[in-house]
């Protein structure tokens, strides 16, 4: 008898409890999402309003684009954008080519030293060029490449992460496809190009997006290796612009901030679904 009533109350309370749980989770998620978006929302607010409203949040404050034009004319941002675009393109192409060749060797060839070499590749995940700034600077100086765009990219062209990721993807491709192509007389490079590369496109996409956003945002190494307008990427340009003592208004700095992150942010908004999905499909777990 008592058992029955107990199970009845459980039955009765369960749906309501569940709803409460759900509401709490939704509330939590939204609160955190708002906090996370706050800096960006604030930057958008100040960038599109006159300086008088930078700490004064009125719903009907007048809108303006003046901050953007001020920022654009105050520093050579067009040149900076061109430099960054060239930089990320060079790095991406090099990473794809070098990474594909190396990953193919690790995934499908048996050769002496493969384990040692693969360990050395993985070591780069820990010992990144980012922290070897002193010695890499000397290396670039010895090569006579100080203050060039290529020099910013060189340390990142062989990427341990990229090789690892592509190797994992290539390993999932059935060997039968590979062998079928070989029977038809295709050499290893042709097989790579016709079989492996097309099947790994989601991985290339995911890795490409990570690489572009990483190098678009990179700051310390370009700061060290560049010292002229012709080579500086936007991140370094922005830091110089914002560091000019006094003078520059918050609203203008925030307009410049939005400008430098704009292209990436727009690309991310447009490709958001693909971005997240290609990450998942790349099988990074």
């Amino acid at each position, binding site marked *: 008898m008592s058992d029955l009533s107990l199970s009845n109350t459980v039955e009765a309370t369960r749906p309501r409890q569940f709803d409460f749980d759900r509401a709490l989770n939704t509330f939590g998620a939204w609160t955190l999402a708002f906090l996370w978006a706050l800096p960006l929302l604030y930057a958008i607010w100040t960038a599109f309003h006159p300086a008088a409203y930078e700490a004064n949040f009125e719903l009907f404050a007048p809108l303006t684009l003046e901050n953007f034009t001020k920022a654009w004319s105050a520093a050579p941002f067009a040149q900076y954008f061109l430099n960054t675009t060239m930089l990320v393109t060079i790095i991406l192409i090099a990473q794809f080519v070098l990474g594909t060749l190396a990953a193919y060797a690790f995934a499908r060839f048996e050769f002496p030293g493969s384990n040692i070499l693969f360990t050395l590749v993985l070591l780069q995940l820990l010992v990144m060029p980012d922290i070897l700034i002193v010695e890499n600077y000397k290396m670039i100086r010895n090569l006579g490449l100080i203050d060039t765009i290529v020099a910013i990219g060189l340390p990142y062209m062989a990427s341990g992460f990229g090789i690892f990721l592509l190797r994992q993807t290539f390993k999932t491709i059935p060997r039968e496809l590979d062998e079928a192509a070989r029977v038809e007389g295709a050499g290893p490079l042709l097989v790579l190009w016709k079989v492996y590369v097309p099947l790994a496109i989601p991985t290339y996409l995911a890795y490409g997006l990570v690489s572009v956003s990483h190098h678009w945002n990179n700051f310390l190494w370009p700061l060290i290796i560049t010292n002229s307008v012709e080579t500086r990427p936007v991140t370094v340009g922005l830091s110089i612009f914002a560091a000019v003592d006094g003078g520059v208004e918050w609203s203008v700095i925030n307009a410049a901030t939005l400008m430098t992150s704009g292209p990436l942010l727009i690309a991310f*908004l447009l490709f958001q679904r693909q971005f997240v999905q290609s990450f998942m499909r790349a099988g990074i777990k």
Partner: protein
Amino acid sequence: MTRRMQWIYAWLLLTPAMIMLFAFTHFPAITTIINSFFSTPRGRRPAKFVGLQNYEELMADPTFWKVLVNNLWYAMATIPASIGISLLMAIWVNDKLKGRSLVRMSFFAPTVLPLIAVANIWLFFYTPGFGLIDQIRMGVFGLPENSWLGQQETVLICMMVVTIWKEAGFFMIFYLAALQAIPPSYKEAADIEGASRWTFFWKITWPLLMPTTLFVSINAVINSFRLVDHIFTMTGGGPDNASSLLLFYIYEVAFKYWQTSYAATLTVVMLALLSIIAIGQFFFMDRRVHYR
């Protein structure tokens, strides 16, 4: 293809990548260690072997100890916090949630923003009196204004908040991928057994996420030594090195004071720390996590 041909082919495929890797990762790592035993060459005076002198200088350098302790605190706070928050984010976003894509977008957006750029926005948040945090404190709670970045006690915490904000969304993606790989039948089975959400999480989800947690935590460790961009904009390491981290100090020593040998010595310390922590994680967390 004969075996010999296979070998040659593989080595040829590897050569370009390995040359670049050796030139900009392994070789500089080795020269860093070598240079830490030499003096800094100046003008006509070449570098000469000085044994452990740089390391003795290091032991006696109060700035080094301060920066090291800062960095350890920074790592100890940002690693668990960003892992916890990113897991929470992933669980929320993986659930049927109203406005899910908007929430996901907001979590992930900091990842694609340049740290050096968003540091400007955070700088404003922390501005005494005028900034957003102080406006809320003063307006809502009637508290006096506070110089968040000007005080030794708060400045490092302010930097930690920025780092956690920046990296949590990136880690969320990895957890999200892992969560979606868990078969729904596990959840159904658990529901039939009457397991609570909490039990299901600790007994099923969390163990299955172990490899992801390992991957994410190693990334978080690396980031805690690598992410220093915001220091340049927000504090310049101050006040009195209270917000300086190891990599920032290395930058200062090498490119402001041009003591490259001492900078190499500091880099050796950083490499050693990274290796110890990463190896420790591998053994501590899960020996069964293998990348095949």
